[in-house]
């Protein structure tokens, strides 16, 4: 009797489950398109109030000029919020997509491949377009870019008896100046303990974690091993330290606090230094080149993604076009310190911010993040290996990455 009742209850619950499932089912096919005035939902991963305000103002200007509506929402955690929105079939129409996550979204069909409908697509830097290419198709256009460069603390530099002529342009020179700085009891270099900093040395040695199309793992090569061995030498010799060892959250903080004479960070460090350490004097230089003279840095970028399920795709493309116009990119650059992704905006940008020349130079030869789906946990595992690089074996780190990446890439 009692047993029978339990079965009835469970059956009722199962029915509720299926009913629920039907509740947020979707038609599965292409989303119904609406013409006329659109109500665009824009989700951004804002770096701060300055960015939120600039994007909101630009969106409002576009909306009133074009007779549409655009609501900009800054995300707390855009990966999670987008994940929930896609699962519920109600994604925002336009949203930021980080290059490191792009392939995940593109591979599951969440993104609309609209890039060929944007005017003058070739004007965007080729390596940035490559970062948003999946299976040979450019999906979305980059909104801006950032690159890594070498920052040097002027006071600590002079204290070590170094001059402008000593700014390192090769690995050997970097080691040499680091030893001089260390002799004065100062930590020479603070470098982030992730692939997003250490990876630059691989590029300088002509290597990379994966093949250009992102389909093969190519970490275990002599060039990559040499690059990691060089970084390991810096760490072992006390010439470089990870920010955590210096009791700081990132390289810029260690640098601003004067705990390290040099750091390798991107152009976002400008804003951080201005806000947190306004009195610290520093200069910016291109990263030193590898043994073969190869210049290399990493570039970071986000694109304006348009949801495949958006009802206002045409209007959304027009919105993105307005946001990525050269003069609008320059306005964003002024407001929150990013660099334009259009080559036609470069001359004006360099004229306006001459001190950013090393960052701008890096855009031309910068390498984007690993562009393949399902790689997040593999890359997190790689970071774990890099954290233990000082005591570990570079070859083991690379082999482990290859093994895990092969499984994830299915090749």
């Amino acid at each position: 009797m009692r047993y029978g009742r339990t079965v009835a209850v469970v059956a009722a619950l199962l029915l509720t489950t299926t009913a629920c499932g039907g509740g947020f089912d979707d038609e599965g096919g292409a989303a119904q398109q609406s013409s006329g005035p659109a109500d665009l939902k824009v989700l951004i991963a804002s770096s701060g109030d300055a960015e939120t305000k600039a994007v909101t103002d630009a969106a409002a200007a576009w909306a009133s000029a074009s007779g549409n509506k655009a609501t900009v929402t800054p995300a707390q955690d855009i990966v999670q919020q987008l994940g929930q929105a896609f699962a519920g079939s109600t994604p925002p129409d336009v949203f930021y997509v980080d290059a490191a996550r792009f392939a995940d979204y593109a591979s599951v069909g969440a993104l609309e491949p609209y890039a060929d409908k944007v005017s003058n697509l070739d004007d965007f830097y080729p390596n940035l377009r490559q970062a948003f290419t999946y299976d040979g198709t450019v999906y979305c256009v980059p909104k801006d870019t950032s690159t890594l460069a070498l920052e040097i603390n002027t006071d600590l530099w002079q204290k070590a008896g170094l001059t402008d002529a000593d700014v390192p342009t090769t690995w050997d020179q970097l080691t040499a100046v680091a030893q001089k700085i260390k002799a004065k009891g100062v930590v020479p270099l603070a470098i982030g303990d992730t692939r997003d900093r250490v990876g630059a040395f691989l590029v300088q040695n002509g290597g990379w974690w994966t093949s250009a199309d992102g389909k093969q793992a190519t970490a275990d090569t002599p060039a990559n091993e040499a690059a990691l061995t060089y970084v390991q030498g810096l760490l072992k010799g006390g010439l470089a330290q990870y920010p955590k060892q210096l009791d700081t959250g990132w390289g810029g903080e260690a640098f601003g606090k004067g705990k390290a004479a040099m750091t390798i960070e991107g152009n976002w460090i400008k804003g951080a230094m201005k806000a947190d350490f306004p009195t610290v004097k520093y200069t910016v230089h291109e990263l030193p080149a590898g043994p073969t003279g190869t210049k290399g840095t990493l570039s970071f970028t986000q694109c304006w993604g348009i949801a495949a399920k958006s009802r206002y795709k045409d209007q959304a493309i027009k919105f993105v076009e307005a946001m990525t116009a050269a003069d609008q990119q320059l306005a964003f650059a002024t407001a929150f310190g990013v660099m334009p992704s259009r080559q036609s905006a470069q001359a004006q940008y360099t004229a306006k911010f001459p001190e950013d020349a090393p960052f701008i130079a890096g855009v031309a030869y910068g390498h984007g993040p690993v562009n393949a789906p399902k790689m997040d946990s593999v890359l997190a595992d790689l970071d774990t290996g890099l954290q233990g690089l000082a005591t570990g074996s570079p070859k083991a780190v690379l082999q482990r990455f290859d093994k895990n990446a092969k499984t994830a890439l299915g090749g």
Partner: protein
Amino acid sequence: MADSKRGGIRGNERVAGWLFVTPVVAVLGLFLVVPILMALWVSLTDWNGQGSPFRSGVPFAGLDNYTGLFTDDGLARQNFMTSIRNNAYYVAAVVPLQTLLALGLALVVNNRLLKGKGFFRTAFYFPSVTSSVAISVVFLFMFSNSGAINEILGFVGVNGPQWFADPRGVLHLALGAVGLVDVSAPPAALTDHGVLGLTWWDWSSGPSVAMCAIIALVVWTTSGTFMLMFLAALQNIPGQLDEAGLVDGATRWQRLRFITLPQLRPTMFLVLTLGLIGSWQVFDQIYVMSQGNPAKTTLTPAYLSYRTAFRDFDYGSGAAISFVLFLIIIVLTLLQRRALRERP
């Protein structure tokens, strides 16, 4: 349910009873049972997070998500087993420590000679009512390389570790300190063999230094709540029992061991069970303080489940991890219940 005959004078009571509990059944069903069943379904699929998981096109994976955690030699199993190892050491440290501390505090506060009981009771309970996120942030400062803890250690001549950057396991450190093994070159017998994706050397690491900081935090915050439970139980023990022991000439220790502790057995079971369940599910401290770093030594199944689902978009595997965790908790609780059973 003594009267199960139908048609009696109380025949309608059953219907009325069900009617009265309907709201609770509906609420629990909607917000507890249905989501659990939905998650169970997700754990059997390769749902990629696009649209509803109950559509027809969602690929059914069977038990693949579960076998991936146990039998396939890959990153998923390695991460999962690492998280299980971390959490097992964490539980093994937290549960006894917090129970002992809570019992000790309760005995102190229950002491009839203690002045200002209210003050101490509040002071000991205070960490439990503070937000765990806020406390976690404060502990981050205390355990930073130049923080309060390392300053104090410096006074007594100890060079404190870089707490949240230190992935070394304390068992390894202890073994190295007594000279049993060389930590920089561990014995090949342990590193070359292993089970379930981790070597014996990895399994035997003990909690990492970073995990120890989190253990200290959790013991400190939870012991207040359990102290209250012990205190309530202590105040229920009639004073005559203690006095009878006194008359029989029992020492203070004997009275605690043979009179007080046996009376606390039900509370002890409650505290151990709640402690076990809570510490297997540790999430917010990890999320705020370490995100699984350094070197995955603070990765726990609950955090791994979150990361797998929402970072890797591997919702099936993430849901599978949480169901395995659920099973672990159930099994351990049953074992504990058996161990603490009253013996005739």
